[in-house]
């Protein structure tokens, strides 16, 4: 019952913000498409047109990235992170510690999305099953301060 209430409230909130690119809640995040996941999360660093950004270091552009020929490269990066990029394949239910989590299906969706947009034109055929076979980060994250 409680779960239903939460879902209902989340749905109401999502409706209220339907005109904007995103709404933040764990419940609604679970129903996002690959494109929405990119716009809710990835573009925070890789930027809205996947052009990347440069300061003392840089966020790589995803536009026309040659590494993207390998879907495994993209999927492993999203699952396990790379350099400063956080892993998104942590187990579910660690939100309190700040550990990001996307399901295998969501990771497949976002991998397909970035490999098929921003000047990349690879087939969108990666499945959740294929993602599940790749190594995931298992360890618990030590919480925020």
């Amino acid at each position, binding site marked *: 019952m409680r779960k239903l209430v939460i879902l209902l409230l989340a749905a109401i909130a999502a409706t209220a913000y339907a005109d904007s690119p995103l709404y933040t809640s764990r419940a609604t995040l679970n129903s996002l498409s690959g494109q929405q996941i990119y716009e809710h999360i990835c573009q*925070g*660093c890789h*930027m809205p047109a996947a052009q990347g950004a*440069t300061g*003392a270091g840089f966020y790589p552009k995803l536009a026309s990235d040659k590494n993207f020929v390998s879907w495994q490269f993209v999927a492993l990066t999203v699952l396990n992170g790379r350099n*400063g990029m956080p892993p998104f394949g942590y187990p579910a239910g660690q939100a309190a510690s*700040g550990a990001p989590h996307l399901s295998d299906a969501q990771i497949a969706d976002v991998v397909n999305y970035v490999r098929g947009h921003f000047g990349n034109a690879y087939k969108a055929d990666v499945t959740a099953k294929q993602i599940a076979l790749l190594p995931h980060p298992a360890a618990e994250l*030590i919480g925020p301060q």
Partner: protein
Amino acid sequence: MKNGEESGFMSRRQLLRMVGATAGGAAMYQAMSSLGFAAESPYKGPIDLQGAPRGASVLILGAGMAGMTAAYELRNAGYQVTVLQYNARAGGRNWTLRGGDRYTELGGQTQQCEFDKDLYINPGPWRIPYHHRGMMHYIKLLGVPLEPFFQVNYNAYLHSSQAFGGKPQRYREVKADYQGHVAELLAKATRQSALDASVTKEDREMLLESLRGWGALDKDYSYTVGEASSDRRGYEKEPGGGLSGRPIASKPVALHDLLDAGMWAGIAAGDTFDMQTSLFQPAGGMGRIGEAFGRELGSLIRYNAKVTDIHQDDHGVTVTFTDSSQAGAQQSARADWCLCTIPLPILSQIPMNVSQALASAISSVPSAAAIKSGLQFKRRFWEEDENIFGGITYTDLPIMNIGYPNTGFQSRGKGVLLGAYIWGMRAMEFTAMSPQERVQRIVDYGSQIHPQYHKEFENGVAVAWHRVPFAMGCFGMWTEETRAKHYDDLCKINGRIALAGEHASFIGGWQEGAVTSALDAIGRLHQRAVAAGDKT
């Protein structure tokens, strides 16, 4: 300290130099430890770096808390010190945004801070526990005045959008009621002999008495409406003077409602070691520490220097950098040793010839997302309307925290509060918005707790740490697995290069981690330098 040459005996320093020269750094460190010499963290007092070799030099990368702690101590010990800093200011994540400041995040969007004079927000660290003795030492040394930071305010709120019709509850009431109900249950179990297996007959009476005191129970060990419970949770009508002063007791919330609301999760926020009273904040903003440190170090710091390459050889370390104030001309600096405090997401992208073990440690610590937002309001309504003076409200809304200013109480005019402190996935989602949209949403969410928001709001800023050009994240995130695999490699000196920063500590995300890691690293660098002897 007199030199051994003069006294005719081998000095401790000479002995150590000999051990260092013949058996390498590890044996040297071992020997020093057994001589009670090597300073292990936690912070024990000012570091002793006596006997710096003549002419020895250290290049420090980063003028944050770690880099400036190291620069200060190494300079005083006699080393030639140069600090390279990407920003045009000292402090790094020790940073305050004030009215008139401009801040451009990665992606190019600029925020103009429009706060009134003397109002500010700390986008990074905002509190200093009393037992962060390293920080406290340097704050005292630099003469930065401190104010109390209220971690716990009994009159601030715990808020669940899913409970009590979304109405925020006073921390005082939630804590008193939870504690009272738990005490009542325990007392009941004790009196029904349910705990006899764990509690001796002698302890039974003492336990009951203590539960009455701890939980504010009445003479029958019940947590009910009355003087005892109201003295904890507050009154329906508070006691006063004269004929109108007779108090009316308040009614506790039922245990079921408290548990269902999940608010007990917020009760212990001030109980963890890092959050226990006393905590402090520098008057005028956290950035006062970095600014004072920068003034102290003066021309040792070279600003606007973006490091592009770090290369060591048998004799020293050469660092290449571009100077943004001179149209990006490439320059280099060289020293015998290098202390690198550059945040790991950035360092992982800079070419540097170190061991594979260190390189993989550097690329194995992801960077946390976090958002902090400062909102200016026309008046301090949280004080005027709600009697909240400093402290923090916790909520399950995406803004997660509202922090009230711990200074300027009852001042007329405008006020700035921390409208949000967000981490995890929610912080990533806020990072993906434009700064203006972040602020707008933070105001919208906050108005569910303080309905005055929309009427009183004037302007705000929202800093997303993944988009901070000099940090690319809030702090390094460790797991037990990555700690076991990479932590020691990250901290060990590699040739002539050592790393320091909060990421190289067990106090991640705290400035004390930066300070103690810097002291730990320069203590070891100093031993190496002493072992190498004077420069000829």
